[in-house]
């Protein structure tokens, strides 16, 4: 099993080195696709072997459990779609003169490195190493966000690097405090940052110190998830990133950062009681959904709309985690998978529209359905996934989250959240209708669809449909993750 965790990282790093050495070519870009497929394949293979108990591997450095498998599958699935579409994206950028061979090489090197960092973040057992991997994602993606080197891309990169680095630094302080508290009670102080050791001694940790640590960890990782109060970087960074990278950031990276909170929560809960993080998650979650809903109603930019919708969904996930029951955890993980696939389809289509119009302003993009059936159709399906319409999986996950909230006596929070989601729903529908069905502006350009992006879109749509019809073997994984992380009923 150790091999199945190490192979994805090695494959990704090899792809990065190959592209760095040989420059951007179709063949080197294909190594990134292979690396992403390796992540997906190893994730699926682990899924059949992991069972219901966590496995600590490689002398306590790595960990394989249901949560890491679910996250590996999301990274692999979205990574595959994003790297395939990346080929068409970079070729278009080169044709339009937005980037040069050096820029393409940088893109092809950083993308698989980014995948490797996310794999490490979900499969490390030491919360210090997890922190290092999460901070590494910020550093690695900095030049991906600013790939176009325009003024706005630079502004977005600056905010992204500074706010995320400061936020995540708070999480490091929290990690140190947790280590301090753990050293105080552990027989094995050298391994006091390992998740299995921390879980075993959690109930004996000092309450005061752990509370401080938990607060800092929530704020710190919350910053990477895009939760209030450190959310201001998110829309800027995701709207300026190349579309395939935005898909990875919105669809996967936010969820990877959140998975760290899911891992830490049971430890903090055991030390200081379930109320502390429940209230913390509820407050930041509700505030995030609220801010996102308000911004969704005012934004006039397609990619910013998608970014705010990611904020809304992360807020919803935080609220589900606050409920914390087994049903809530399983539902929020299904939500993560479904959101990852849907958001990828949407960001990839928005990339096509951006390339055609040289703009992402909603006012510039109208009548897409009549101008390109493929683009319009995929966009429409993506929006339906995002809005939680049946038969797509977010319908089931949102319904289950609602039930979990009601079961956890958080009906008041459910009421507020439903109201905010309705506002967000209306805003997304209004903008999408104008993009898809509005009267095409005179002189609207054609919307060329490179073959690689078409493949990625169709596979993404098919996967979204499949996940909506049946979660298949994924259901068992979600249940064991929930059993490990959820509160006892």
């Amino acid at each position: 099993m150790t091999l199945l965790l190490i192979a994805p990282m090695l494959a990704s790093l090899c792809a990065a080195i190959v592209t760095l050495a040989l420059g951007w070519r179709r063949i080197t870009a294909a190594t990134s696709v292979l690396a992403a497929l390796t992540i997906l394949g190893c994730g699926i293979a682990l899924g059949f072997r992991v069972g219901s108990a966590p496995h600590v591997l490689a002398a306590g450095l790595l960990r394989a459990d249901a949560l890491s498998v679910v996250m590996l599958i999301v990274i692999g699935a979205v990574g595959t779609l994003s790297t395939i579409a990346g080929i068409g994206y970079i070729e278009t950028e080169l044709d339009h003169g937005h980037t040069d061979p050096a820029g393409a090489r940088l893109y092809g090197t950083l993308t698989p490195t980014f995948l490797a960092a996310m794999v490490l973040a979900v499969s490390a057992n030491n919360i210090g190493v997890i922190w290092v991997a999460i901070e590494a994602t910020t550093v690695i993606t900095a030049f991906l966000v600013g790939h176009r080197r325009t003024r706005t891309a630079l502004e977005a990169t600056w905010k992204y690097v500074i706010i995320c680095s400061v936020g995540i630094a708070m999480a490091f302080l929290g990690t140190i405090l947790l280590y301090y508290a753990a050293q105080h009670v552990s027989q094995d102080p050298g391994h006091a940052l390992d998740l299995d050791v921390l879980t075993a001694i959690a109930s004996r940790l000092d309450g005061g110190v752990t509370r401080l640590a938990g607060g800092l960890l929530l704020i710190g990782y919350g910053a990477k998830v895009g939760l209030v109060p450190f959310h201001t970087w998110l829309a800027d960074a995701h709207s300026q990133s190349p579309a395939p990278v935005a898909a990875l950031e919105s669809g996967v990276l936010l969820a990877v950062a959140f998975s760290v909170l899911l891992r830490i929560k049971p430890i903090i809960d055991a030390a200081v009681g379930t109320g502390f993080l429940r209230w913390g998650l509820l407050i930041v979650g509700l505030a995030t959904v609220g801010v996102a809903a308000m911004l969704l109603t005012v934004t006039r930019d397609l990619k910013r709309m998608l970014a705010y919708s990611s904020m809304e969904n992360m807020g919803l996930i935080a609220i589900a985690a606050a409920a914390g029951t087994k049903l809530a955890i399983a539902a929020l993980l299904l939500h993560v998978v479904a959101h990852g696939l849907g958001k990828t389809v949407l960001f990839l289509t928005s990339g096509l529209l951006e390339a055609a119009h040289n703009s992402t302003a909603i006012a510039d993009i109208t009548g897409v359905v009549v101008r390109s059936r493929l683009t319009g159709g995929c966009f429409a399906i993506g929006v339906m996934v995002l809005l939680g319409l049946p038969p797509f999986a977010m319908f089931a996950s949102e319904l289950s989250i609602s039930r979990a909230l009601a079961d956890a006596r958080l009906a008041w929070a459910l009421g507020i959240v439903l109201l905010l989601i309705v506002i967000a729903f209306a805003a997304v529908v209004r903008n999408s209708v104008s993009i898809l069905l509005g009267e095409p502006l005179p002189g609207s350009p054609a919307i060329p669809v490179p073959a690689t992006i078409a493949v990625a879109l169709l596979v993404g749509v098919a996967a979204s449909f499949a996940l909506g019809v049946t979660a298949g073997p994924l259901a068992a994984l979600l249940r064991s993750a929930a059993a490990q992380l959820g509160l006892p009923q």
Partner: protein
Amino acid sequence: MTDTGFAALTDTGFAALIDLAAGALVLAAVLIVWRRDLGSIIRLLAWQGAALAAIPLIRGVHEGDAALILIGVAIAVLRTILLPWLLARALGAEHRGLRDATPLVNTTASLLIAALLTMTAFAVTRPVVDLDPGPATAAVPAAFAVVLIALFTMATRRHAISQAAGFLMLDNGIAAAAFLLTAGVPLIVELGASLDVLFAVIVIGVLTGRMRSKFGGADLDALHELRD
């Protein structure tokens, strides 16, 4: 290891030295709040790095821990030479002696707020100090004070280099907390975290250079195009 001659420090001497180092950390932070000349801010940052490196060195000598002494030396190289040099290089392209634009809060008020933040740090860290009282943990409020002052600096300064300096100060404070509380995190984490900080500062340096060529300066007020 304790009888190899390293254990030359008496307990009182140890406590006094740790307090001195922690005091120097806070002093450097307050001076950074006071100064607006970017060159001297970077020099102060290097001094703060030296005070930070002194903590693992003092602990290492006191506890006879050779590994900790080595880490202290590495921290000294990174924080007093390498990182300030990278910042100075990012600044270098602009004229020396450049001053930060008027901060959002004036200097007198900033110094008062720094004092308030230091008091807050003592209040917040009460449970931390109480858990395991000793000369090292007693100095932890100083590390938290540096963290809070750094956050305040970053929130009120308007120049890219002063924000980067604030970020490094924040990191110094967090590293100080780590050395005071736990004699350092495990080596693999320490290495990874140091590399992350190094790369973050390199990225910030490159971005500052790009900002200068696009906006004709590194004043962050120019960053206002993305909004809803």
